[in-house]
Every structure is written in structure tokens, then in C-alpha cells.
């Protein structure tokens, strides 16, 4: 029988319909219906200046709103062939890692709610609030920060901000291990998490799983390694695991939070002096930039005439991860409750995914690049 779940469901923050094909309690396969959050944001962006575009790009997704603006700004900086001042790059790293911490904590809290572990759910939200305070202190807003501009960041920080953030991170670090241990050694959590929702490495490659989901399946791939700021200035190690199940995905996120806290400390220690914003003249051209969002890689391809955005295409990680979940993880799951928790372990972000629908009548599935511009800018 087909068991529909959603679009309004206690454990899904966002609307999405999950159709589970069940036999008794066993879930045989799953299908996902998208389209509840499609707002046509790329279409709205076309013909707007970057000042309006960056505001819109923040509204692609609320949870990882920061990385969208950073990628948008860096795409324009790439078109101009310039980079933001070093202090601005450091501040971007600082905000990015704070955003990653709160996003991962929220994702794990959703998972714990799905396995009915109310205690850890509350603890995760308890840990998250100070991080939201740090973000608010730094940028002025809790969710949609409006922090990036093309050529740097909007505001400078002073020492008192950094001291407060350092204090928050130190406190988080001292408490954090206890909660990770609760998850790591909890017998009930283990029963619900180990060997549930397996995604093997081959399947992860086939489904193009990225981010913590791919890394938990043994794909050591983190775009921060290739980002110039991280490459030149920071030491961090890519967290990846081999156990491939729900436990691995959550544990991977926990370990990444630890790594992010180390990065924040490095930023505060080594923050260089200088400007945080410079004027960049944007020429006409086409650029593409990829960044590591909390959920994986986010790609922006922008074509501009120097003033207005002519074309824009946004590719977000959730679409691949949710597809990997529907195709491979929700295949022969023992119970419906496990299917829900597996779905939550993928950290789905529906507002991110609802980008564009390509219907090709001839049946060819082409990549979403504007053909004429691809030829024109091939040499780049």
C-alpha cells in the first residue's frame, strides 16, 4: 500500500510529500513529490542589479542563508577577477562557520525529534541559541543576515564582538562533548541509528550525494579544501566516515561542529587588520563559483552585462541528497518510523531544492546551462 506523509507533518518543518510503498510495516520504496515551495526566485532575479540579487539569494533558503550570499558575491568577484580584502575573507569564514554550527545543530535536533529522543532534541536547541546570539552580535540579524556584499562584508567588527564570540564558543566547546557522548553511547539511540538507512559509497557516487551525507558514506569531498581563503590561511581536516548509516551522518555533523569551532578560534586569533570592503567594477561576463554549504556544495552560475543579472542558475546540495535518500536509503527499511528518521538524517532543506523544472519532451536530460553562453565562455 502507498502511505503518504506530508506536506504538513510534525517532523518535517517544510512541506514535502513522501510516498512510502509499504508491505505491512516494512517500507519497500519511496517516492518524493516536490513543488510546494517553488517561488520562481531565479526568474525574479533576472534583470535586477546585484544589490537586489544578493538580497534575493539570501531568501533561497533560510537555514543556510549565509552561504548563498557569499557564493553570490564570490561569483561576481570572480567575474571581475578580484578578491575581497583579507579581513573580509576572514570575517566570511567566521560567519560561515557559525552558520554551519547552527545549521548542523538544527539538523541533528530534527533527527532526535524523529527518533523520539526529546531530551537530546532540547539539548541541541539549547546549544544552538548561544550560537544564534553570536551570529546576531556579529551581523545584526538571527537568520537572514544581509552580511555580504560584492567586494567584502558590510560592517567591521571590534574586539568586544570577538571576545564575546570567543566566550560563546569556549562555553559551547566545554559542554559539547557531553551531548555527543549521549548520542554516541546511548543504547536506545544506537538501536534506532546503527545500520538504518544505509547508503553505500557506490550509491552515494551514483546519486551525487554531497556534504555530510556523502562524507558519511566514505566520499572524502569538501569544497572548503579548494577555497582560496581556507587553503591559504586555515588548518582543518575533512571529516569523513565509513559506516554509511544514520548514526554516521549525525556523528559526521557533530564532528564537523568541533572542526568549525577550531576554525572560529583560528579566525579570532589571526584576524588581520585592514579594510572589510572594496569597490569592485564588474565587467560583463559569465562566472561560476562553488562553495561548501552546511549541506554540501552550492553552485552559482551568473551571467551579467556589468550592471544587471542576465541569467542566473543556482544549484543546491539538497536536491541530490534528498534523491539519494528516496532512491537508495529508503529501500527496504524495517519500519515506517525508521523511514522518517532516515529522511530527517539527510537534513533536507526543501526551500533550497525548489529551483527549476526542466521538462524536455525528447526525453534527453541536459544539464542546466544556457547553451549559447556555454559556447561563448568555454575558454574560461
Amino acid at each position: 500500500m502507498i502511505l503518504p506523509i506530508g506536506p504538513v507533518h510534525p517532523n518535517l518543518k517544510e512541506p514535502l510529500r513522501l510516498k512510502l510503498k509499504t508491505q505491512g510495516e516494512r517500507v519497500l520504496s519511496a517516492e518524493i513529490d516536490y513543488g510546494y515551495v517553488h517561488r520562481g526566485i531565479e526568474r525574479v532575479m533576472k534583470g535586477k542589479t546585484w544589490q537586489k540579487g544578493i538580497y534575493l539569494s539570501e531568501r533561497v533558503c533560510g537555514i543556510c542563508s549565509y552561504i548563498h550570499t557569499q557564493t553570490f558575491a564570490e561569483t561576481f568577484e570572480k567575474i571581475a577577477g578580484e578578491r575581497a580584502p583579507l579581513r573580509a575573507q576572514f570575517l566570511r569564514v567566521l560567519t560561515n562557520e557559525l552558520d554551519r554550527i547552527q545549521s548542523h545543530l538544527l539538523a541533528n535536533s530534527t533527527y532526535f525529534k524523529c527518533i523520539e529522543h526529546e531530551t537530546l532534541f532540547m539539548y541541541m536547541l539549547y546549544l544552538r541559541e548561544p550560537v544564534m546570539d553570536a551570529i546576531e552580535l556579529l551581523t545584526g540579524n538571527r537568520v537572514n543576515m544581509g552580511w555580504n556584499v560584492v567586494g567584502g562584508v558590510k560592517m567591521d567588527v571590534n574586539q568586544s564582538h570577538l571576545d564575546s564570540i570567543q566566550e560563546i564558543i569556549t562555553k559551547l566547546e566545554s559542554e559539547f562533548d557531553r551531548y555527543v557522548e549521549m548520542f554516541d553511547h546511548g543504547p536506545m539511540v544506537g538501536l534506532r541509528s546503527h545500520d538504518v538507512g544505509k547508503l553505500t559509497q557506490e550509491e552515494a557516487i551514483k546519486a551525487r550525494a554531497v556534504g555530510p551525507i556523502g562524507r558519511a558514506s566514505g566520499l572524502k569531498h569538501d569544497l572548503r579544501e579548494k577555497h582560496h581563503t581556507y587553503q591559504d590561511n586555515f588548518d582543518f581536516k575533512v571529516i569523513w566516515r565509513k559506516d554509511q548509516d544514520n548514526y554516521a551522518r549525525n556523528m559526521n555533523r557533530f564532528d564537523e561542529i568541533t572542526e568549525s569551532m577550531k576554525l572560529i578560534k583560528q579566525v579570532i586569533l589571526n584576524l588581520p587588520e585592514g579594510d572589510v570592503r572594496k569597490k569592485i567594477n564588474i565587467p560583463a561576463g559569465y562566472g561560476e563559483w562553488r562553495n561548501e554549504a552546511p549541506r554540501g556544495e552550492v553552485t552559482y552560475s551568473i551571467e551579467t552585462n556589468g550592471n544587471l543579472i542576465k541569467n542566473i542558475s543556482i544549484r543546491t546540495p539538497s536536491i541530490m541528497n534528498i534523491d539519494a535518500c528516496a532512491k537508495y536509503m529508503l529501500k527496504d527499511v524495517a519500519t515506517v518510523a525508521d523511514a522518517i528518521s532516515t529522511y530527517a538524517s539527510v537534513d533536507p532543506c526543501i526551500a533550497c531544492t525548489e529551483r527549476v523544472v526542466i521538462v524536455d519532451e525528447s526525453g534527453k536530460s541536459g544539464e542546466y546551462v544556457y547553451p549559447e553562453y556555454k559556447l561563448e565562455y568555454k575558454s574560461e
Partner: protein
Amino acid sequence: MLDGLKDIIRKSSIHVCLVSTGGCNGCDIEVVALLSPRYDLEQYGIYVTNNPREADVVLVTGAVTEQWRDKLERIFAKVPDPKIVVAIGNCPLSGDVFNQEGGSVYAPVSDYIPVDAEVSGCPPRPTEILAAILSAGPDAIAAKGRQKV
């Protein structure tokens, strides 16, 4: 006397249903933050159920997208009386940035269902959402309940 008793019960146990009708999910995570120990929605006798059939208060976040145009009314019909609707964020009020040329949103929410309270902001802070639910919720539910009886 029965009315008074019902008032007390209705005021002290409010079930909230979050319906996201297509926004950037910023408001949704601020509602989730309400559950955290810092804001602690449940100390005011408010429970998040997300089952429309059990709810007293419907929180609508998001501009109405194509898929939600008929579904929103259907969900509202399933909520038992007395019920109130709180619109959270700019999207349900005006469509915010999505309500421009090219966007496929059909805001405002009040075209589809009656809205009792509105919280503007992109997104509003959790305290503002909480204040809106508390100031509009219990009394409006009690008043609407008396109308029916």
C-alpha cells in the same frame, strides 16, 4: 458557568499547527527555535502538534505558491472550531520579495483564509512570534468559542 469553564480550558491549552506555504523557511526555523529551552513555548500551555485536526491556532508562514492555493483552504477546513490564524513574516502578508514580476506566488494569505493576527518581519524574532500567539490566541479562541455556543 459552563462558558466560563470552557474559556479557562481553551485559554490554557492551545495547540498550534505550523503550515509552511512556501517561503525561505527562515520563519519556520524561528518557530522551531520557540521550542528551545530559552523561549519554551510549552510553559505558556502552547503545544506544537502539526496535525490540523487537533489544532486551535494555525501559523501560516510563507507566500502562497501554486500548489498551496487549494490546499490551504482544505487544511483550514479541517481545523476544528474555534480556530484562529496567525500569519508569520512578510511573506503571508504581502509576498515579500517573491511577489514581483516572474515570481509564482499568490500572496496574501488573507485571500484564502481569514487572518486574525499578523507578525511582520523577515523573519520576525521568536519573542515577537510568541507575543503574537499569546496576545491574540487565548482570548480570540475563547471569544470565538462563545459565539458558536
